[in-house]
């Protein structure tokens, strides 16, 4: 523990972050890291120094999963809880550790200084079970490794002295196509920009047909053009490296091994739209990438490819800052991301205005996915025809897929758009496949009868998540995992999503416990449709998908568990008498009721 007071530390951080309220979240993340929590003293100090209401600072802390007002242990261990982690035994490992150390999951043990819990997918399903310890990524948590970790904690060994191999993150690239196979020389895209000029290059990107790789599939050239033509001053380039969609990890690999190309793509975009400021919004779960990315940025600066007078051109003046997230899936939604960049709660904005006209601090802002920037850089160097040599007419080029779950070879696969699900399953050695969840919990659940469908914007669109389930799996466990995920990740702003996610979770639990009837399914469909049509943002409009999809395409999952009564109570009648039985000590027949419905 450092001898610094929370106020002194806050002061240091305020200086480092220019006393700018827009950097509040970054300051809070740093405080959390150093003090294991954000003490009231720091909250008061920051509020007064940044002229913010104290309750606003508290509200920011309260929004992000990784920020706490109560101290966490100096070992803060969070197991990744995506369904594919669970399928690799994550829950057993967590329990193993809890038992070995005699602590409760979800609690903090004072003696050991250990907090133990679960968190949403941390993007390592190809090398799980995985966890975060003090924000650092642990992979391949075998039983043996768990025993070792238990010993390390018992001996109070500091995390930076733990064996390095615990923290190894592999790329696992299994299939390469034009994007990963083509070499991009440092600065080549910028050279191309300098020789062609912005208009011709935008035309070229437009002709390539490049659409956003983050999920929504908006035409990239169009977005850049809108921003370029927007009235506001001082545009901004933002890379969305939030990669929060459970089961997706392709951006992680790109950030780890292709960061230079990303920076090149962002710089290209900056040159075209006339931006001098850029951000990489890096999800908190990928904190281990922060220093390597900063080094990549520095390398580019050192070689005159970033900063002022890029490649000797005074007009090219662009630099990039990295902002961390702090555990909020919604911050991948571009307008919530911008709010978060501004140091606020990640609540999606009302649109219009769109970010391209009024984004970060009201300035015109391009937000693109990691893969999109890289593709744009490659197109600038290799031309539209090169890009169009792959894919279909509506979905040009290739797509990186993050494949995990029941297959022999999980990892990154680059495919031309138009590749069928079955081909992909064959390539990753998936056998006996029951279902594939494409595009994460928000996406589609596909049964075998639909494996002939193809990855494409107009068929099965995806940001990159591809989770495989074989016939040994109970798909309802996946559906429940997804429902829990959305309850946890709903930002709480709008009624249908805030309340609907919890209502769906309750009903689903009723189904799984075998207490539901057909009426419950009808109610779930009704709630799901309301969320789909009435929610404020994409999280709410897609959160019911796993339930709606499986009710439609896997009816047996539900039918098998339904009661034949027309109605079953919403709660366990006998359990509701537990407390009274305990208080009165009664065990007579009158102290019980007949459970179930009529």
């Amino acid at each position: 523990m450092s001898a610094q007071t929370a106020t002194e530390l806050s002061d240091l951080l305020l200086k480092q972050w220019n006393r700018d309220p827009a950097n509040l979240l970054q300051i809070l993340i740093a405080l959390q890291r150093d003090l294991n929590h954000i003490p009231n003293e720091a909250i008061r100090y920051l509020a007064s120094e940044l002229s913010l209401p104290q309750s606003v600072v508290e509200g920011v802390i309260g929004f992000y999963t990784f920020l706490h007002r109560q101290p966490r242990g100096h070992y803060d261990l969070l197991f990744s809880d995506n369904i594919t982690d669970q399928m690799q035994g994550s829950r057993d490992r967590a329990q193993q550790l809890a038992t070995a150390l005699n602590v409760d999951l979800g609690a903090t043990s004072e003696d050991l200084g250990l907090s133990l819990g679960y968190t949403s997918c941390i993007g390592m399903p190809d090398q799980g079970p995985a966890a975060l310890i003090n924000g650092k990524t642990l992979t391949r948590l075998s039983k043996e490794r768990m025993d070792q970790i238990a010993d390390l904690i018992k001996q109070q060994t500091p995390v930076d002295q733990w064996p390095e191999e615990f923290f190894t993150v592999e790329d696992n690239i299994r299939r390469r196509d034009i994007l990963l196979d083509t070499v991009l020389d440092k600065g080549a895209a910028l050279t191309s920009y300098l020789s062609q000029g912005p208009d011709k290059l935008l035309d070229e990107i437009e002709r390539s047909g490049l659409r956003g790789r983050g999920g929504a599939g908006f035409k990239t050239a169009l977005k850049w053009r809108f921003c370029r033509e927007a009235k506001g001053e001082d545009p901004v380039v933002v890379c969305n490296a939030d990669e929060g969609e459970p089961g997706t990890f392709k951006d992680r690999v790109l950030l780890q091994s292709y960061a230079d190309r990303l920076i090149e793509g962002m710089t290209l975009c900056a040159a075209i739209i006339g931006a001098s400021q850029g951000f990489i919004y890096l999800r908190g779960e990928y904190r281990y990438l922060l220093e390597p990315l900063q080094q990549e940025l520095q390398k580019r600066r050192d070689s005159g490819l970033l900063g002022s007078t890029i490649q000797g051109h005074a007009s090219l003046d662009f630099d990039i800052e990295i902002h961390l997230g702090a555990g909020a899936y919604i911050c991948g939604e571009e307008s919530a991301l911008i709010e978060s960049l501004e140091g606020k709660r990640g609540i999606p904005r009302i649109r219009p205005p769109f970010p391209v006209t009024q984004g970060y601090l009201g300035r015109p802002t391009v937000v693109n996915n990691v893969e999109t920037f890289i593709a744009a850089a490659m197109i600038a160097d290799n031309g539209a025809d090169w890009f169009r040599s792959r894919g279909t007419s509506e979905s040009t080029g290739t797509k990186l897929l993050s494949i995990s779950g029941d297959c022999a070879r999980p990892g990154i696969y680059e495919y031309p758009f138009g590749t069928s699900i079955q081909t992909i399953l064959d390539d990753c050695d998936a056998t006996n496949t029951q279902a594939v969840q494409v595009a994460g919990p928000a996406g589609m659940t596909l049964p075998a009868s639909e494996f002939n469908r193809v990855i494409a914007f107009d068929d099965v669109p995806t940001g990159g998540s591809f989770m495989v389930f074989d016939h040994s799996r109970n798909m309802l466990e996946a559906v429940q995992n997804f429902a829990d995920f959305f309850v946890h990740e709903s930002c709480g702003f709008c009624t249908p999503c805030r309340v609907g996610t919890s209502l769906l979770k309750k009903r689903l639990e009723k189904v799984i416990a075998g207490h539901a009837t057909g009426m419950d399914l009808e109610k779930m469909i009704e709630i799901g449709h309301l969320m789909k049509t009435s929610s404020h943002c994409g999280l709410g409009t897609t959160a019911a998908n796993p339930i709606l999809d499986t009710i439609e395409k896997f009816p047996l999952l539900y039918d098998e568990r339904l009661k034949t009564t027309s109605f079953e109570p919403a709660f366990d009648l006998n359990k509701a008498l537990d407390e009274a039985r305990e208080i009165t000590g009664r065990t007579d027949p009158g102290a019980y009721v007949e459970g179930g419905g009529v």
Partner: protein
Amino acid sequence: MSGKVKVATTSLAGCFGCHMSFLDIDERLIALSELVEFDRTPITDIKEVGPCDIGLIEGGVCNAENVEVLKEFRRNCRILVAMGACAINGGIPAMRNSFDLKECLEESYVHGVGVEDPQIPSDTEIPLLLNKVHPIHEVVKIDYFLPGCPPPADTIWTFFEQLLNNQPVEFTYRQIHYD
């Protein structure tokens, strides 16, 4: 419908206010009695509900006995109606849901004003309390809801009139109230 329509009513965790309001339909009761015949109600003193066409439930579900009676009604009534705020959302009795059951019982039987021989009763004659008070639609299927605390006599009358005449049940603006 042939013959008279059989109606049963009961009050669970309620105050009989809804029943009073029902009686408030005044002279229309006579018209109603031409059409209906009462089974178990607080008025008839029949203790067990038999097969009925319509069951009116006042009050939410707060104890084991409420659960049993409600289910018995559901088994016997073709149409089951939640009558009044408490049946619909627990109402005033549900205000105890902001406290633990233990807190509530201790407040009444241990720390309460004027309590002699403080102890929480455990007599087997007394129905055991549920952790929380629940609306009746969480325990059985409900076919119609008559809001109000109590529902205005006019709302109750309109309900019967429309239902008995096989019309869709629809209320005017002033017939819908939650207070």
